[in-house]
């Protein structure tokens, strides 16, 4: 039995009758005699002296170190004999004496230890330096915790250390993916003792909303010992602070004699899991091998209902073969949506003309119109693309998006092309390849549109389609050696239950129990390895199948030969804005080679989106670019509304609310990006924290309207979730009319003219207009290079055509322009906001009535919005069921990264950090 601060201050003990403290022993603390003998001591909440606070003023019940009491002392405590006191005690005030004995005088070994513990614990609790790394959305809130409103510095914990060697606390802030797990384990192992781990947010604690993802570790505690869990998705900064306080309390309860880091023989390191065909925990590798060999996974999957495959769209839309659900019931023929690639596009007549022209130029059979897209045979693809780019009257020079769909008899890769000279003439090219795994082969468009680079790699990774002619066709989000191509319809995740939600196991069992995802998998964890896998012995935590291939030797910059360094910047690195990694080859300080490595935040957004019902997917879009959740909502709503047609036309007020929210989001996001760009340039957090102050005010508005600061989940198909609360518009007006302009001016005034900033940014990381278009960059990056392409203008959505605003463009396309364009865009956003808050009408905010089950007609749609980071597109294929058949996100952060290498070569390592900052990537969106 342990007792707190056991014997020496036994209340019933000693003293003379008549002394004041003698009369109220029960209030001081309470002894309960047990028949067996030991004393349970309970601190009375009404302790009269110092109100139950110990030497350093904390409540004793929490703070007192837990000391195992030796039997001798226990016996002493049991006996109710007043110990004989020396004579001098009579001369001082007994209360004081008591106090002295309790807090100051060392009366025995226990007490000494207790005091040592107090000091020892106090040092560590007051100086918890976190390891500076953030994984996902939670990391944003973690950074906000350091901002002026919350200020983690009050606890002495603002010293975020980049190197694990100097850190005490690892805050696992966000979704832990399988790709990232070995790195987290390694970082943990590299931290010196004593060290603590805090699992921040639902994902780190148990997988959270992404738990069923094939690349998600369902809780970091599957691998690391966690000290404190902070619930929330994401936890607010207050919650993180609360977690910190909880950790401090935990430290208060520790004692030096039992500290595991001082004891020999206690294993404190965690084995690094291995990236094999899946993430394999080496502690359980034998069990995993055994179960895999038995084929338990395959056996389980055989009995499950599989996702239905639909046939590829055909030219004649009235002839879909009646598909049969496995249940045997014929599926009711779904309603068909109007066929068009996006809301604003070239149009049927233009497309027919274009098809004719292609057939005339490149031979008959080059293009056939299928569901408002051009079906092109694979062997003609490159020629057709070149023709469209170079010789067509409308120059299709911009590859807006590239994605793939797994149909019954083929995999369709389709390309959305737009023209920067005549924006808004979007077309869709379809190319089809063999469906069987590993057989699909397509010519790569890498040499026509450089923007296809990363996107083709993604299709290869997710679908297994090989692109001939791509110079570096490797997996991009998963790692080389991962056993499957996960977006194929025939790939079932380890936690797979049914084709669409809501899963039976979550409903039928009612209150009594529900099935944990772990119970569904024979391995008891998120693990799936093909039965044929035999190579277990080769698995090792020190292998890095992700981005291990060394960079090709760079150019020698000087005649004098010097060795070139190869450094890995990231995934845990102060400058990479999350878990992004750059493999860098350096000659001195100069970059001679650079490869982005991503996928560390790949949390299976698209696969999960194909299980979710349409409505259910809204909160997931929040978590794409977690700085701009309202903008993401907007894009997704547009895509589905395009399918739903007129029945989901938002009412006027909703349209205004949407614009207000989207533009507020833009201001908040640009504030963040400008602040952190400055941080990347070395201005230590000061500009960033001032920028965050404004962002906080905007987040307050979001929270007021939607109930959540970051993950707003506010839009609905045909409107928004709820009307603005009373008073909201006044507050918004106050911020928009009176404050934002002033604050933007302030940033501009203090930053834009700074000499060091100019030196660091002018002429750095130049991206020519031609390259910017060729690399499919979007948003501020594209416009900074002088291309006035803004989806709000190019393909107006919502009611953007009613507002007056300019599309600012840069000239040089350098770092400075990319910085300054954001300041200008914030100004334009404020301009739009001012118009919107003045003109917003009263009225309903949702078309139709609220419904959980939304009927979405079958068809394809591509909803695109101008998000702060660039063009955000949602490509959705609906088959008439409750969930999307295919759901793809064209993420601007991801595609902008294509141009990173181009901008960085020949620059210095310090420039790379700035250039990456100016791209303003958000990893949740890069890796999805």
């Amino acid at each position, binding site marked *: 039995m342990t007792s707190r601060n056991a014997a020496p201050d036994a209340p019933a003990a000693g003293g003379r009758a008549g002394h004041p403290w003698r009369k109220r022993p029960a209030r001081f603390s309470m002894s309960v005699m047990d028949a067996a003998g030991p004393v349970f001591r309970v601190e009375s909440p009404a302790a009269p002296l110092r109100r139950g606070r110990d030497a350093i003023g904390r409540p004793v019940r929490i703070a007192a170190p837990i000391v195992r009491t030796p039997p001798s002392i226990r016996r002493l405590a049991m006996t109710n004999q007043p110990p004989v006191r020396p004579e001098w005690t009579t001369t001082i005030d007994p209360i004081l004496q008591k106090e002295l004995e309790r807090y100051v005088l060392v009366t025995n070994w226990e007490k000494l230890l207790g005091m040592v513990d107090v000091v020892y614990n106090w040092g560590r609790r007051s100086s918890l330096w976190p390891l500076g790394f953030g994984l996902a959305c939670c990391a944003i809130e973690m950074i906000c915790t350091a901002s002026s409103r919350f200020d983690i*510095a009050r606890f*002495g914990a603002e010293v975020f250390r980049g190197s694990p*060697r100097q850190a005490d606390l690892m805050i696992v802030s966000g979704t832990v993916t399988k790709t990232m797990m070995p790195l987290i384990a390694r970082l943990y192992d590299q931290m*010196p003792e004593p060290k603590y781990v805090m699992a921040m947010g639902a994902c780190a604690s148990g997988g959270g909303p992404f738990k069923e993802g094939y690349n998600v570790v369902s809780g970091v505690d599957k691998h690391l010992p966690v000290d404190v869990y902070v619930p929330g998705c994401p936890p607010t900064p207050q919650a993180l602070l609360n977690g910190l306080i909880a950790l401090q309390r935990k430290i208060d309860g520790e004692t030096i004699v039992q500290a595991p880091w001082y004891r020999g023989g206690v294993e404190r390191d965690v084995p690094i899991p291995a990236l094999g065909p899946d993430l394999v925990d080496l502690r359980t590798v034998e069990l995993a091998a055994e179960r895999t060999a038995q084929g338990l996974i395959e056996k389980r999957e055989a009995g499950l209902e599989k996702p239905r495959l639909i046939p590829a769209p055909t030219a004649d839309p009235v002839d879909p073969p009646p598909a049969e659900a496995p249940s045997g019931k014929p599926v009711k023929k779904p309603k068909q949506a109007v066929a068009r690639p996006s809301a604003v596009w070239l149009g049927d007549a233009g497309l027919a003309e274009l098809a004719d022209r292609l057939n005339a130029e490149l031979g008959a059979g080059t293009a056939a119109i299928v569901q408002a897209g051009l079906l092109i045979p694979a062997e003609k693809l490159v020629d057709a693309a070149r023709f469209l780019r170079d010789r067509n009257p409308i120059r299709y020079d911009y590859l807006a998006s590239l994605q793939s769909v797994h149909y019954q008899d083929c995999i369709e890769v389709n390309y959305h092309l737009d023209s920067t000279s005549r924006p808004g003439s979007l077309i869709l090219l379809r190319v089809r390849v063999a469906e069987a795994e590993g057989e699909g082969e397509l010519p790569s468009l890498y040499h026509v549109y450089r923007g296809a680079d990363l996107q083709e790699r993604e299709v290869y990774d997710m679908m297994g389609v090989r692109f001939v002619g791509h110079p570096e066709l490797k997996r991009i989000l998963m790692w080389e050696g991962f056993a499957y191509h996960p977006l194929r319809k025939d790939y079932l995740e380890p936690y797979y239950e049914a084709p669409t939600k809501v899963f039976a196991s979550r409903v039928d069992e009612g209150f009594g129990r529900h099935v944990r995802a772990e119970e569904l998998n024979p391995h008891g964890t998120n693990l799936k390895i093909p039965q044929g896998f035999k190579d277990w012995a080769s698995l090792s935590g020190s292998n890095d199948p992700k981005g291990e291939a060394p960079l090709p030797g760079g150019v020698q910059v000087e005649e004098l030969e010097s060795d070139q360094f190869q450094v890995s910047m990231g995934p845990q690195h102060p400058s990479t804005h999350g878990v992004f990694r750059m493999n860098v080859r350096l000659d001195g300080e100069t970059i001679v080679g650079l490869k982005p490595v991503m996928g560390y935040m790949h949390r299976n957004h698209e696969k999960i989106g194909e299980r979710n019902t349409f409505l259910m997917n809204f909160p997931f879009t929040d978590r794409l670019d977690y700085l701009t959740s309202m903008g993401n909502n907007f894009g997704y709503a547009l895509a589905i509304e395009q399918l739903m047609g007129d029945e989901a036309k938002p009412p006027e007020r909703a349209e205004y609310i949407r614009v207000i929210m989207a533009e507020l989001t833009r201001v908040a996001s640009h504030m963040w990006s400008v602040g952190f760009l400055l941080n990347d340039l070395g201005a230590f957090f000061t500009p960033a924290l001032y920028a965050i102050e404004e962002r906080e005010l905007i987040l307050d508005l979001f929270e007021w309207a939607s109930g959540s600061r970051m993950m707003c989940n506010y839009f609905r198909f045909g409107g928004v979730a709820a009307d603005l609360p009373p008073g909201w518009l006044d507050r918004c007006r106050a911020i928009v009319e009176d404050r934002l302009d002033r604050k933007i001016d302030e940033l501009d005034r203090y930053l834009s003219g700074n000499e060091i900033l100019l030196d660091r940014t002018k002429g750095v990381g130049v991206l020519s207009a031609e390259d910017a278009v060729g690399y499919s960059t979007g948003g501020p990056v594209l416009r900074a290079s002088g291309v006035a392409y803004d989806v709000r203008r190019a393909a107006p959505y919502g009611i953007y055509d009613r507002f007056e605003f300019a599309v600012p463009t840069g000239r040089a396309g350098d770092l400075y322009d990319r910085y300054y364009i954001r300041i200008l865009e914030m100004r334009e956003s404020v301009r739009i906001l001012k118009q919107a808050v003045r003109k917003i009408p009263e009225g309903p905010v949702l078309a139709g009535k609220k419904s959980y089950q939304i009927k979405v007609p079958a068809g394809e749609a591509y909803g695109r919005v101008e998000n702060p980071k660039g063009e955000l597109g949602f490509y959705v294929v609906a088959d008439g069921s409750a969930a999307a058949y295919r759901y793809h996100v064209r993420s601007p952060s991801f595609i902008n990264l294509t141009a990173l290498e181009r901008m960085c070569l020949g620059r210095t390592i310090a420039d790379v950090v700035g250039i990456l900052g100016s791209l303003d990537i958000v990893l949740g969106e890069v890796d999805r």
Partner: protein
Amino acid sequence: MTLWVLIGIVIKILMIVGITQGTVAYLILVERKIAAYAQDRIGPNRCGAQFGLPAALLQPLADGAKMLLKEDVVPKYVTKPLYILAPWIAIVTAMIGFAVVPFGPVGPNQLIDFQIAPNVDMGLLYVLAVGSLAVYGVILAGWASNNKYAFIGGLRSSAQLISYELPLGMSILGMLLLAGSLDMNQVIAWQSQNAWGVLVQPLGFILFFTSAFAETNRLPFDLPESEQELVGGFHTEYSAMKFGMFFLGEYLHIITVSFITVILFWGGWHLPFLGLTPESSGLIDTLLKVGIITGKVFLAILFIMWIRWTLPRFRYDQLMDLAWKSMIPLALINLVATAGIVQLVRTYWN
């Protein structure tokens, strides 16, 4: 020299070591507070509140206790002797610079000599020499760590430190020429009789102060550790007290540099209209002098800290350009101009 004198010196040294180390510990707290105010935050305020102390007055103690009790990782792949030597060099070189710094009045007619070694007439040279030894700590740390970030950080740092050594050394030549001594007390005395260095040598002051930023690795010249690029720079691999020693060394350097600035250019203990002369002694004058010089030093330190939380960082090539292409030529011009003008004035006007 009698034993008593020696004991007196040792007591003085111990006091100064104690005071400077304590000051450094609290400077770190001050820095964190300044950062907080610069960023519209509160900054540390909990640690010590249990004892009724405001403003996290015990924060440095807690940090120190934690660092002492933290595991001291010595990675396997480091060059162990050098790895251990580096932080030690950093702190020793930073400490011994104080030997010749006058903290107050010094002289035969003063109550006490506020200087550990009052009879060294080449104090400035000594400070410069010792200060430039600090680069070894950084280079050795970078090299011994066998870590790429540390290595690049160490390289950058060595290049930076030695480059700024030159303008630092050249910029004080004008002052030396005017004062005619390397003894800091005499430099102060000269300023108290004529004019503050910052008035007669404005260019020299700017060059010196700028180089001082670079020599102490402070923003905008903190490239060796530049966190955004190199994680922790040369001390990436250091943990526990060894890391703390680099930290202490850096702040000790700031104090030294501030003292030199104040002594060379801000008139030391001199303030106009107070009637303080090199000879003035007595309790009040002595206290005034000590107060003034420490006050000025504190101002200089605050300025250095304020800059850190205000400016972005230079890039490596810009930093080197600044040293070699602007500051060294300017320092040369300053030297020639000063020498010429002094020659003219002292030859023909006197």
